[in-house]
């Protein structure tokens, strides 16, 4: 079956959804991503949906699941590039995606993932400085 490619960039996983996402494919992405997070011990996951023309209740739920699952596995997830028309439609549909971390574009999403790692890192360096 066709799969959505997952890229490893540094300690982050990158996914750009470029195809019309059918339900099985969305579920496969959810599985693949969680497996991959564990395998490479990724610290973060960035999902670029700037090519997605719709997010309906099913795709929305899959995005929510991915965020919840990666959080359980100790990684942060950020969804970037949602189109205005898609965002307006989601609000009208009544889909609550407030659990998602979002950013305008890939650059800002990456910056966000790095920022989220920093408190832990600086805490570590503080501790080592104290010793």
């Amino acid at each position, binding site marked *: 079956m066709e799969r959505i490619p997952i890229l490893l960039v540094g300690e982050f996983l990158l996914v750009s959804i470029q195809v019309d996402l059918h339900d099985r494919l969305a579920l496969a992405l959810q599985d693949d991503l969680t497996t991959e997070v564990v395998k490479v011990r990724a610290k973060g996951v960035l999902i670029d949906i700037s090519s997605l023309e719709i997010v309906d209740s099913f795709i929305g739920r899959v995005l929510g699941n991915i965020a919840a699952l990666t959080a359980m596995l100790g990684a942060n997830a950020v969804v970037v590039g*949602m189109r*205005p028309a898609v965002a307006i439609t989601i609000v009208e549909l009544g889909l609550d995606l407030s659990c998602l971390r979002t950013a305008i574009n890939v650059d800002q999403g990456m910056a966000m993932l790095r920022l989220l790692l920093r408190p832990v890192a600086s805490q570590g360096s503080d501790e080592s400085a104290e010793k």
Partner: protein
Amino acid sequence: MPTNNPSRIAEILARHQQAILEDWLLAQLAAFSARHNLISEADLRRQSADFIGIFGTACQAGTLTDIATPAWQPVRDFLASISRSRASQGFSPSETATFVFSLKQPLFAHIRQELAANAESLADEMWTATVLIDKLGLYTTELFQTAREEVIKRQQMEMLELSTPVVKLWDGILAVPLIGTLDSARTQVVMESLLQSIVDTGSNIAIVDITGVPTVDTLIAQNLLKTAAAARLMGAQCIICGIRPQIAQTMVHLGVAFGEVVTRATLADALAFAFREIGCTVSRQAPRN
């Protein structure tokens, strides 16, 4: 009554094409004398000559009683383009219909001349020609109205967009100062263009200033909150400012359904908040003296 004999209109038209064209042009120029600024005589001549050609071909090929048949497709297309261009040039519906109706006189004159000897056939052909040209005229008017409605709709949209400028206040900070009455359609246009500007500029803070909006009803408050929710989904934060106390009440009430929204009393407060969010500090330099 229409006879089974093929109509002679096509033949008359072909034989006197040039003369009919000249008479028709004169009639049109008389009708449009005040409208020289809208269309040049050369353009009118070209359009008229083109039309006579296409019209003649259709008369030869098709039945003269039904302009919905394929033979009349070129004529319909031609009239469609004329109506569209005249609608955008600012012609009135009757002026546009005149293009077709003014063909009656010259055409009738030549039919009368040709068929003077045969009263019965003259009556038939005059009847056929009248019905035919009336149909084409009506068709043109209908098309004109549709085209005109489209023009008006587009102008309205353009005006809406013009009246709501989205400005970039700072790197990463956009603002829309809303002034005047907000109806549902305008709110929608504003919000869509705000969200698009967020993407285009990569801004993550958008300030909506409603100081200049006299009344904000529940529906508009709801639209503003929906926009804030949509912005958040896109990765941006919306701040609504210029809110009077009673509107603030409504917002808080509705906010339960659409998630928290940041509100501030004034644009200055909103900007201060935005600066803090993006990690900018504003400081006053020590006075020189």
